[in-house]
């Protein structure tokens, strides 16, 4: 097998990882601070994709229509995040995590039906926006420029989150709250609002990743369930709540899948769960995670 073939496959894996990272980073963020494993994250991603489509279809602005729709849909998802956090999750922080988990699962069920009822379950698609329609040449091989856009966006989100978590005062609070909630609360910082904003940020990222998927592939019912388990794999491998962990986790899952497809297509999917189980057995809190107190 020649170098260029492997390189091409490597790049496909990177593109896959970028999309996975986008979705998983929101999941990891909410888990890291709120300690809530949000099953509904995949559903927010699906809802974001459908809302982007509707906005794009309604405003019909040439060239920048998609970007405007992406922006607006992310805002809408942020609003939905506020609703979910304020009316549901906030009232459950004092409860056990199984109930929180189940509450987010209830949201999964409800959003599924909202999408079914609102969009009729048709599969939809948005054409790729200008200037990412074609491909660029990479060592003489074509590589879709939209994949670059996705990778770029993934990088922007990484840098933004890194800046937010490690370089701002808010970030200090976030890390402190993730470590010791009572302590931060005792310092007079309003934890509930911090949690709301973190959840909103997670929802916005979910909406954004949903929007980015729309031109990448197709939008259809069932895409929520399809992605959420893979995202669990990412955050579990990398370490829940850890930003570098999520990055590494998505790279591992993306590349394992891409090369799995090349060499043993029947087992590509099983490989991911094997890696996940192996990491959990050897290092339950993930590669970059810290052990639970």
């Amino acid at each position, binding site marked *: 097998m020649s170098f260029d*073939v492997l390189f091409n*496959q490597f790049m496909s894996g990177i593109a896959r990882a970028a999309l996975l990272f986008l979705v998983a980073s929101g999941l990891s963020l909410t888990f890291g601070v709120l300690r809530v494993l949000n099953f509904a994250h995949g559903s927010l991603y699906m809802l974001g994709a459908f809302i982007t489509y509707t906005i794009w279809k309604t405003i019909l602005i040439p060239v920048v229509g998609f970007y405007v729709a992406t922006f607006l849909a992310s805002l809408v998802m942020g609003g939905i995040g506020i609703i979910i956090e304020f009316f549901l999750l906030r009232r459950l922080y004092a409860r056990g995590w199984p109930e929180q988990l189940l509450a987010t699962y209830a949201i999964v069920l409800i959003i599924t039906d909202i999408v079914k009822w609102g969009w009729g379950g048709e599969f939809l698609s948005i054409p790729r926006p200008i200037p990412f329609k074609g491909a660029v040449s990479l060592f003489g091989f074509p590589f879709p420029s939209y994949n670059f856009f996705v990778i770029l966006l993934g990088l922007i989100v990484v840098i933004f989150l890194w800046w937010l978590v490690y370089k701002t005062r808010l970030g200090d609070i976030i890390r402190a709250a993730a470590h010791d909630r009572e302590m931060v609360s005792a310092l007079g910082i309003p934890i509930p609002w911090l949690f709301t904003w973190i959840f909103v940020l997670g929802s916005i990222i979910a909406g954004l990743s949903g929007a980015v998927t729309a031109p990448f*592939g197709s939008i259809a019912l069932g895409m929520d369930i*399809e992605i959420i388990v893979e995202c669990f794999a990412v955050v579990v491998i990398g370490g829940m709540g850890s930003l570098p962990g999520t990055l590494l986790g998505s790279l591992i899952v993306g590349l394992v899948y891409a090369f799995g497809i090349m060499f043993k297509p029947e087992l590509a999917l099983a490989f991911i769960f094997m890696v996940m189980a192996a990491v959990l057995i050897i290092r339950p809190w993930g590669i970059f995670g810290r052990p639970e107190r």
Partner: protein
Amino acid sequence: MKRFAVLITIVFVLSLLVVPLVMAQGKPAPAKEPAKAPAKAAAKPALSKEPIKIGAIYDFAGPCYMYSETGMLGLRIAVEEINAKGGILGRKIDVVVRDTEAKVDVAVREVKDLLLREKVNFLIGPCSSGTGLAMQVVHTEYKTIRISAIANTEAQTVDKFSPYFFQVVPNTYMEATAATRYLNKKVPAAKKFCTINPDYEFGRRQAAAFEEEIKRLVPDAEILYHAWPKFGERDYTAFITAIMAKKPDAVHSSLFGGDLVAFTKQAAPYGFFEKTPFIALYDLPVLIALGPDAPEGTFGFARGDFFQDPNPKMMEFVDKFKKARGAYPDAWAVQNYDAVYLLKAGIEKAKTIETEAVIKALEGLSLDSLRGNFTIRPLDHMGSVPCYQGTIATDPKYPFKVWKDITRVPGEQVLRPEASVREIWKKTGVTR
């Protein structure tokens, strides 16, 4: 807060109880008629005037939701039409719908609900092959006929043949065989092939049928690589690069729906469609979803979307469908419409709804359908329904791309030969 939550609970429970009642009242005709019928029957021996009940069981969840919905619309149009003309044998048709949620255990339970509680006379559905096979065992046990208008795995008619099952959608073998011939006709020089199929029953059977037929047509054909993306895959990039690395002469695929939309958009930037002749299930919903992104010159196969067979009967149906839904009918609606008319023809020929008599009547029955004429083969109850292939092209008449060079392959040309069917039966233990 607590009180508010309790209030919501009470409202919710009440609405669960009341809504079904209101809904039952909302459609007075089917709800009241059976109540009246026995009273009449007591007076006159007109017991048979009670409606014929058809249980429509579909998968209203996930990717199957859309097919089930548009299929139901086609089914309802046919039923309304027949009822407006006085029904079948003077009896109205009543449709009872059930949802399988695309889960096999729910499918079996709901079929039992239709058979035991609703006491339906016939079944139509479902969409997914898995739920179809699971319910086949059950309705066979209860000796009730089912017609499949969407689920098309060959296992239903061949491997796990049931005398109570009929099919009006080309099965995986017919569809793949016809598509392979079209691909071979278009690119006769192709010798090295790759395939990419969704990793489940339907895709596996399509791939097997393709391999069988292409080796028959091109004896020195070589299959370089089978790609098996999971059903509902969102990112095909790695599959596309893996296929292109093998440099095939042509690629066969049975991807469909949202999967095919995603594949097409992700393959286009690689110049995949310029380099490689490709055939897949480019039917109407896919072409509409893709819009301008549909790759012109690429080959498609399908089961009878309206533009593939623009005969007068079809065009009449197009008008009705547009009136009901404001959209063009796809093959899923067309097949469900045909399924109802097949049932009507069978019952009228048998002059009764008694199951065994209807089976006898349906065997060898010839129907003038929306997709032209087809016959039910007595051997395995497979309809000799046509398969369509074409090349994607623009037509100014429509806001989406359609096909040119359309071939209509009558089912007789691609049905699995009787000897081959019997060979499989020998293996699976079917005696007939």
